[in-house]
């Protein structure tokens, strides 16, 4: 009796993942218990397993694997079908109400006062309606029709295909014909690009002399699993200010199907779109947050979200006028650097993600500076490379200072939460903690902080112009960070000016700032001798532009009001 099924990952796109998710759903509807999806280490397949053996499904009664979608002028035939026009109208009503009542939060009102919010999976429906035009004639609807009559045969062919036939389409097709015997059965259907991002309508021929524009055909038992997987692991979003479509599919690493369903549901609740890059970043952060909130998914001892869900397979469909074409296929990993040590650490990580989400959601991707920042952050998030994060932090520091200077609310990274990220990135060598804990490093980073955001907020909030705001400091130090001697000279120059300003203020009886000593500078130079000098330099700038949780040495300034304002705006 079968308990294990293998779905080979042959396309390197989310088509493989959708198949695995659909297979898990099929096992569930056939009565399997404790269905689990795993991608074993160094394996080229998803392992979908069930605790209970799966009997022959040839005579299994019909079960819904995916809902039908009904558009204008058609009538609903089953309770599981989705009335697209009704859902669309509901969504329009809700957003019109939100537009008319921008300051009212619907969840704070009594039931029935605000219109019902749209389904969280609305974008899954609308994207299918858009990509499968007209959906009534699409392979999606036709497959639903054939399944209604011969569900058992297709289900059994799929089960055999992934239990014994290595998932090879030709063999699954042949087996389906065998199972049908003399009965008439539809074997193939057209490959649709939204479910098969690399095999949509387009040219594919075995010989260059026979090329044509017809699409590819695929066996129905495989395709039906992708249709099902769409509803259990995909999110779709239209990037802001575009007519494009981005599809992200959750790629399980090792997770029970029941838990996966609850994670996906929670993820769809918290995930909102944004620009094209923001969608990637926010999806990865929201998914990580949802996993961290779930103690069952991520245990408190050495639990890593990435060990549960590896990341998100994504496809970007660019609008070409009449149709949408694939312009990118990629995989965004969940952060490798998040590992939960205990419950307080879990809370700290949730705060880290909350801070990153607040900061990144406020960046306007249509502006080049913010666009570059988001790109840097996305690379860091997926690749987990320290240098990307440091570059992002340094550039963000300069950007945030400019925003604050224009009297706009801005969010800053906080040093304690940054420290947790650095520790996560540096689990093995421990060199980052040695740098961050160094008193000289701390002293100079604080001096940078006082000369930039400290001085700016003193000027803006208290009209205290004792100290000059060093606007270009981040860029200047970053330019010199490549070479140790040049950076040391630039740092010494900054400290000289910092101390000169201190002396001038003391002479005039103005507010004093803590001094930076020669020992501090010597300690930082020693750190640069011992560790990668560029890393030390970039860390210093990044820390210098971050906010201390309690800036005890900045008694004059209090930027709390600005931060509170920005937080509430971010939530809206």
């Amino acid at each position, binding site marked *: 009796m079968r308990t294990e099924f293998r779905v080979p990952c042959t396309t390197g796109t989310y088509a493989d993942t959708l198949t695995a998710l659909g297979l898990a759903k099929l096992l569930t509807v056939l009565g399997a218990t404790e269905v689990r999806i795993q991608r074993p280490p160094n394996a080229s397949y998803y392992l979908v397993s069930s605790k209970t053996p799966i009997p022959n499904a040839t005579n299994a009664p019909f079960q819904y694997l995916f809902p039908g979608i009904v558009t204008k002028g058609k009538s609903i035939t089953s309770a599981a079908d989705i009335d697209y026009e009704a859902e669309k109208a509901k969504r329009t009503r809700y957003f019109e109400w939100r537009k008319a009542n921008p300051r009212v939060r619907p969840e704070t009102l009594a039931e029935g006062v605000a219109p019902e919010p749209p389904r969280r999976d609305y974008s899954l429906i609308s994207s299918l309606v858009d990509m499968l035009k007209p959906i009534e004639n699409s392979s999606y609807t036709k497959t639903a029709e054939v399944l209604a009559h011969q569900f058992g045969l297709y289900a059994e062919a799929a089960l055999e295909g992934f239990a014994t036939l290595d998932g090879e389409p030709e063999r699954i097709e042949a087996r389906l014909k065998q199972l049908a015997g003399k009965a008439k059965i539809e074997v193939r259907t057209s490959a649709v690009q939204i479910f098969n991002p690399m095999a*949509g309508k387009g040219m594919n021929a075995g010989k260059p002399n026979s090329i044509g524009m017809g699409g590819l055909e695929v066996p129905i038992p495989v395709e039906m699993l992708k249709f099902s997987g769409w509803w259990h692991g995909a999110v779709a979003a239209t990037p802001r200010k575009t007519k494009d479509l981005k599809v992200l599919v959750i790629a399980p690493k090792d997770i029970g199907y029941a838990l996966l369903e609850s994670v996906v549901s929670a993820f769809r609740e918290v995930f909102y779109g944004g620009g094209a890059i923001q969608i990637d970043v926010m999806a990865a952060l929201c998914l990580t947050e949802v996993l961290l909130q779930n103690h069952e998914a991520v245990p408190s001892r050495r639990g890593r979200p990435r060990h549960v869900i590896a*990341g998100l397979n994504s496809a970007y469909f660019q609008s070409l006028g009449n149709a949408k*074409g694939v312009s990118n296929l990629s995989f965004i990993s969940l952060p490798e650097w998040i590992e939960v040590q205990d419950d307080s650490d879990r809370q700290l990580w949730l705060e880290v993600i909350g801070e990153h989400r607040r900061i990144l959601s406020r960046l306007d991707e249509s502006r080049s500076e913010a666009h570059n920042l988001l790109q840097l952050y996305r690379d860091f998030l997926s690749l987990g490379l320290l240098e990307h994060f440091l570059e992002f932090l340094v550039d963000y520091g300069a950007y945030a200072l400019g925003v604050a200077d224009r009297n706009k609310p801005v969010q800053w990274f906080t040093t304690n939460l940054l420290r947790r990220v650095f520790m996560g990135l540096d689990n093995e060598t421990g060199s980052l903690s040695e740098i961050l804990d160094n008193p000289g490093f701390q002293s100079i980073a604080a001096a940078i902080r006082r000369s930039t955001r400290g001085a700016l907020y003193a000027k803006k909030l208290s009209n205290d112009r004792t100290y000059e705001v060093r606007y270009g400091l981040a860029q200047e130090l970053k330019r010199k960070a490549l070479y140790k001697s040049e950076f040391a000279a630039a740092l010494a120059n900054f400290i000289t000016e910092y101390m000169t300003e201190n002396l001038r203020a003391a002479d005039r009886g103005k507010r004093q700032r803590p001094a930076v000593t020669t020992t501090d500078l010597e300690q930082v130079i020693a750190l640069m001798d011992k560790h990668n000098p560029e890393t030390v330099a970039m860390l210093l700038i990044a820390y210098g532009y971050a906010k201390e949780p309690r800036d005890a040495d900045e008694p004059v300034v209090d930027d709390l009001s600005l931060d509170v304002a920005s937080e509430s705006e971010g939530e809206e």
Partner: protein
Amino acid sequence: MGRYLVAHYLPTTLFSLKDSQATNAAGKTLLVPSPYAVKMALLDVTARSQGVGAAKAVFIWLKSLEVRPSPPQYACVSNAFIKIQKPWQSKESGAKAEEARKKAILDGKAPFQPTVAFREYAQFQGELRIALEVSTLKPEEVEILKSMLLRINYFGKRGCFMQFTQFGELEELDETFITMTGDQKTSSGSVMHYLDDFGAKMTWEKVNVYLKDKPDRETKAALLPYQLKRSSKRSSLYTRVV
């Protein structure tokens, strides 16, 4: 002569060979040339250097040869969005379609029109090796094979140049070579491709691109000794596991 003749190549440009499951709309690349591509490259150089008659003779013993590539140590796959040309299609039907086509040709819009598509390009670091199982070949056939292998200067998409460096011999393939369905050993990699090879019913007429006979492509699941090391929106880095 060992059981396998191994040709070593150094990739000198980016590599791209569209997966045969992909359409022109989104060309994901394979990470190794498929046995089909290697055999076609051999037939191509034979036809070019010695004529079609020689290629036809080579085809007879080449068609059933076992081919196993060994990918380079590293492959960094870049995601690109490029401009391509696709056949112009009329929105009309029947007689109007032909009329529209003639007009489009006069207007310069047909027979091809520009569009954009996704393509992947792999940058390799290290040697690409191609092993061919030659135990059933006669010595003179092996010599012909060698002379053709060293003439090959690209695999996959035209312009994906490879520089031949040397020949080697192996009695058994090591773990750096791909394994395919039916092989006795299994690779420890985590990347799977469906790779094409000549089917049992392949004939010269089916290979010949000037004839309309449909080629007999046999698709087999292949395990590559690669693992995905890092991935982002713009690129993916694969490293060989051994």
